[in-house]
């Protein structure tokens, strides 16, 4: 469903992705991890075209992201994305955060959009907060709203960029639970996270990045049992101590 082929990406003269390749099949859950600055966020931003690439190719559901004729807004509407800092629209109520893109991008009518929004708020357990503003919710609640906002467009896959790393520890699980349920429902997901418990539970594969390269791409069990590279081994031992 998503194929990333020999992608090179630089900011100015600094190359931050140097020849990354991987495949994500329909229904697969991939966890991307690696040290800070290794290019994880950049990689998933390239997948929905938020960052342009210099060479290589990224194909999502048969559509080449970088191709000139690709309608990026249309493609992005089919690829959900959840950010570290939630990035809900603060001036809109929760319900309006969920209906805005449904109406403006998919052209759904108001009632239809609201019905879809409420069913998703039910799913993330936040129906009673529909008429609050994001600033009135906790971080965990905001992130669940952000997930619901993406799901409202019925995406074919979801990208997560450290969805729990800005949260207080006691709120991490409420967000992970939603993501686990999503994975169990068969959603195709690329998740940048350091939550190794989550990775063990639902990831089919782990992609380990270091300095702009994918240095390891292995089935979850293999990765945790025996990382092939020293860098991954060091990284794992450091992260599992916490």
């Amino acid at each position, binding site marked *: 469903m998503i194929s990333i082929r020999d992608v090179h990406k630089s900011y100015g003269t600094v190359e931050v992705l140097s020849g990354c390749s991987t495949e994500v099949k329909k229904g697969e859950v991939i966890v991307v991890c690696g040290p800070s600055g290794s290019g994880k966020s950049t990689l998933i931003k390239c997948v929905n075209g938020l960052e342009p690439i210099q060479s290589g190719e990224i194909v999502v559901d048969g559509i080449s992201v970088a191709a000139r004729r690709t309608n990026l807004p249309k493609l992005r509407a089919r690829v959900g994305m959840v950010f570290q800092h939630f990035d809900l629209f603060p001036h809109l109520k929760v319900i309006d955060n969920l209906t805005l*893109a449904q109406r403006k991008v998919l052209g759904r009518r108001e009632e239809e959009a609201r019905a879809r929004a409420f069913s998703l708020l039910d799913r993330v357990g936040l129906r009673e907060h529909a008429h609050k*503003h994001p600033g*009135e919710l906790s971080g965990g609640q905001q992130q669940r709203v952000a997930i619901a906002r993406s799901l409202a*467009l019925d995406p074919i896959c979801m990208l997560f960029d450290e969805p729990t790393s800005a949260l207080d520890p006691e709120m991490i699980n409420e967000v992970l639970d939603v993501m686990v349920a999503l994975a169990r429902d068969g959603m195709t997901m690329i998740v940048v996270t350091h939550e190794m418990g989550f990775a063990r539970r639902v990831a089919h594969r782990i992609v380990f990045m270091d300095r702009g390269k994918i240095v390891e791409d292995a089935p979850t069990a293999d990765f945790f049992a025996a990382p092939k590279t020293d860098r991954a081994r060091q990284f794992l031992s450091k992260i599992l101590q916490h």
Partner: protein
Amino acid sequence: MGPLDFHVFLQPVPTGETTYLGWLLQGLRTTVLLSACAWAVALVLGSLLGVFRTVPSRALRAIAGAYVEVFRNVPLLVQLFIWYFVVPEIVPGGERFKQIDPWLQQFLASMFCLGLFTAARVCEQVRAGIESLARGQRNAALALGLTLPQTYRHVLLPMAGRIIVPPLTSETLNVFKNSAVCSTIGLLELTAQGRQLVDYTARAYESFLAVTVLYLLLNAAVLLIMRKVEARTRVPGYLGSGR
């Protein structure tokens, strides 16, 4: 100087059709009308330019940047003379402009001058407002499939607009104060009427005291309205942009 005598305001003017107070109120009306029109021009043009300052297109950013440099750095008085004396001479249709009612000529020149000058300042406020938003807002909107114009219209501008209400308040007050410059091309706004009053009655203290009080009242009215705007657009639970 004798004792202050405010009866002078109730005396009829030489032409007899109103009192001196009437003159002052006419001036006040022109000041309000001029400032409101100039403010509308500044808000529309300034917002557009402010958006240009933050878009990916280099050309648009350069255009808006150049505009700000020019209009912010040439003295307002010089700009006014250019609009009133020079522009009608050099643009096509300038001859027709010179045939319309002199008051309207003065008013239009003043309105464009003040409006375009203030637009440069509004532009910078709008740019600062957009840049102060969490960087993720733009990406979050684009990631949902909104186009760049939709992102500005529904996500960035509503929030930036709220953030810049306080600085825009002082720009609004500046428009009213700056409008006094337009008395130099003969527009009979509040300051000009005050001067005319002195010429006719030799009551400088009373005249300018009255003019001062009227400007202060305008000031208070603007503050009151802007405070209402601020309260009406407040976002529950929003504590600044941070990050």
